């Protein structure tokens, strides 16, 4: 059996760690679909960055994507604070459709005004190209997960404050809105780092599935975040090996099995197994999933 490519292996581990960490926090903020929304809202950013600079270099496009998805993320947080009726996913759906519509309009404008516009570099930015993963991608993902981990560790008190009782945290003088906005910025950063490597669907699946897999088994915030991160890393480690095994047993020559969907299916199966399977922590059996006693 051959070994997987090192860059692919480390990119998968990095993605697992990053989205396990960020996902555990978005899960507790009851905004599991925010990753998906931010990934969609990167699209007009990519187009605008390309229209302004005329370059297709990943750094320029990523910068545009980050500006837009961070901006939309902050607007969502602000709208939800301002209008309680938009809680749930009203604000998410509104900004998802708004940003993507903006993207299509900008795209049709660009097609008319710019010469020789190939779709190539721009669309793959959104859908990911796991086959062409390079070492820089892997380092970006690992670095982003380190950075996010450092932030979450050093602000763990403020973060658990806004997650579990925001009004109480506000009264204690904790910077609730600032921490929420920094969390949004980190989610946007994580989304933009992973967008080119793993793609939108894999990213939103990991953000949801990893914390769901861990949630039934623990009631402690620290354990939950750590376990979700580690689980992500573990699934990221297993996936490339599994892909190679599947390719050697079922694959046809010239038709590779894509890594992304296998990653998603693995994470989702683990989540489903853990939702319906036995619980490690006997105390949480009676309370079920995601509710306080």
């Amino acid at each position, binding site marked *: 059996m051959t070994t997987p490519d090192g860059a692919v292996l480390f990119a998968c581990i990095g993605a697992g760690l990053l989205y396990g960490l960020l996902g555990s926090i978005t*899960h507790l903020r009851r*905004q*599991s*679909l925010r990753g*998906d929304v931010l990934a969609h809202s990167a699209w007009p950013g990519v187009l605008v960055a390309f229209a302004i600079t005329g370059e297709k270099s990943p750094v320029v496009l990523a910068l545009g994507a980050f500006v837009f998805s961070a901006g939309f993320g902050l607007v969502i947080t602000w*709208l939800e*604070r*301002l*209008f309680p*009726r*938009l*809680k*749930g*996913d*009203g604000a*998410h*759906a*509104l900004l*998802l*459709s*708004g940003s*993507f*519509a*903006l*993207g*299509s*309009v900008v*795209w*049709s*404008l660009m097609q*008319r005004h710019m010469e020789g516009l190939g*779709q190539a570099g721009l669309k793959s930015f959104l*859908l990911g190209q796991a086959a062409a993963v390079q070492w820089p991608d892997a380092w970006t993902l690992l670095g982003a997960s380190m950075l996010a981990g450092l932030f979450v560790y050093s602000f763990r008190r403020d973060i658990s404050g806004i997650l579990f009782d925001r009004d109480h945290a506000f009264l204690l003088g904790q910077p609730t809105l600032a921490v929420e906005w920094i969390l949004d910025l980190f989610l946007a950063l994580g989304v933009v780092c992973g967008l080119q490597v793993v793609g939108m*669907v*894999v990213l*939103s*699946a990991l*953000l*949801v*599935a990893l914390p*769901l897999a861990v949630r039934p088994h623990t009631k402690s915030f620290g354990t939950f975040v750590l376990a979700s991160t580690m689980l992500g890393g573990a699934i990221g480690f297993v996936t490339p090996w599994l892909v190679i095994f599947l390719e050697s047993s*079922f*694959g*046809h020559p010239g*038709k*590779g*099995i*894509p890594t*992304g*969907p*296998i990653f*998603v*299916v693995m994470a*989702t199966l683990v989540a*489903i197994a853990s*939702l319906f399977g036995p619980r490690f922590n006997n105390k949480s059996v009676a309370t*079920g*999933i*995601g*509710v306080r006693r």
Partner: protein
Amino acid sequence: MLEIFLIGALSAIGCGLTGPVLLLRRRVLLGDAVSHSVLAGIGIAFWIHPVVNSPWLRLGAALSGCCAAWVATKLTGILRGRADAALGLVFPLFFSIGALILAIKASNTHLDVDQVLSGNLESSWLERFRLGGTDLGPQAAWNMLLIVVALLAAGWIWWRDLQLYLFDPQQGQILGRPMAFLEILVVVATTSVIVFSFDAMGPILLVALLAGPGICAWFLTSQIGPFFLATVAAGLLSVLAGTGLACALDLNIAGSIGLAAFLIALGTLLMAPDHGMVFRLLQANRARIRFVARLLAVHICQHEIKGDQASENTRVGLRDHLKLSEKEVAAGALWLQARSLAVWENQILVSTHAGKIFAKSLAEGQDSTDGQMGGEIQRPASLM
């Protein structure tokens, strides 16, 4: 052009009839999720019957969309109301299964996944509905018309039960109404709107028409009947504005309709009476002036009793003593003057007889509206 507008308008009506249901059940992103999940059905149908453009693909898409929506609904129950997590778990799984099958079985056929994402309203009228050789208009319009009629009929039959389902399903269950059936009905209705309209509009325009007009209507009315009507009206307005914009500037029609819906919703968030931002800022300002005026009324009376009103009850004295701004003092005094509770005499604020009674009742805490004031003056803080 007229036909494109017709297709858009019918889709807006279909979405307007289902959008409020999804919005009230906090499940608007179901539109996005279902339109991604469709790929699993397309993949399986293609595996069994590998021909591009066969009706089997459409059927597989519809079935897997329904299946995904139903699984997500069930999972929401298991996850105790976490609709976001349920949707987020289900749709990538379905999408990935579809992508896997297509990657293994159809990697050299041209079945464009990107096309699914953007939608093409411009060419939606090309597929015609023919009956005995006569051309009766675009197929997509007839599909949507059928769905709209079915939705209206279902809404007319189960109107009371639908309200129960939306606002208090437990109560409905106790009353013995068919809540489980309504849940399936809602899932099937929303999925059929989504599946039938998305090859014309694309999932993003679909989410725009499900979310934007619904949010508009929710900020304009609190009654269920007007809610549906306002949603349909806002949807039609978005389609009209969007097609107009697209014609004028030669843009992507689906994109500009989505943008119009988004902008109309944002405008409503700003300007709506009662819930809009402008209204709430005005209300907060009014509450602050009222608070300042009451403060002034009590304060000037106290100094009049002490006898040092000549030095204290001037503009400067009040400003410095109560730590207010000059503007606030002026506005508060104006409030009192308008109700003839106080008047300016030689640059000194003097309370009238009515003003003294008012101040006394405030100081003794007998004013019945006093208790509400705390709630009102908190508004500015939550607006920040």
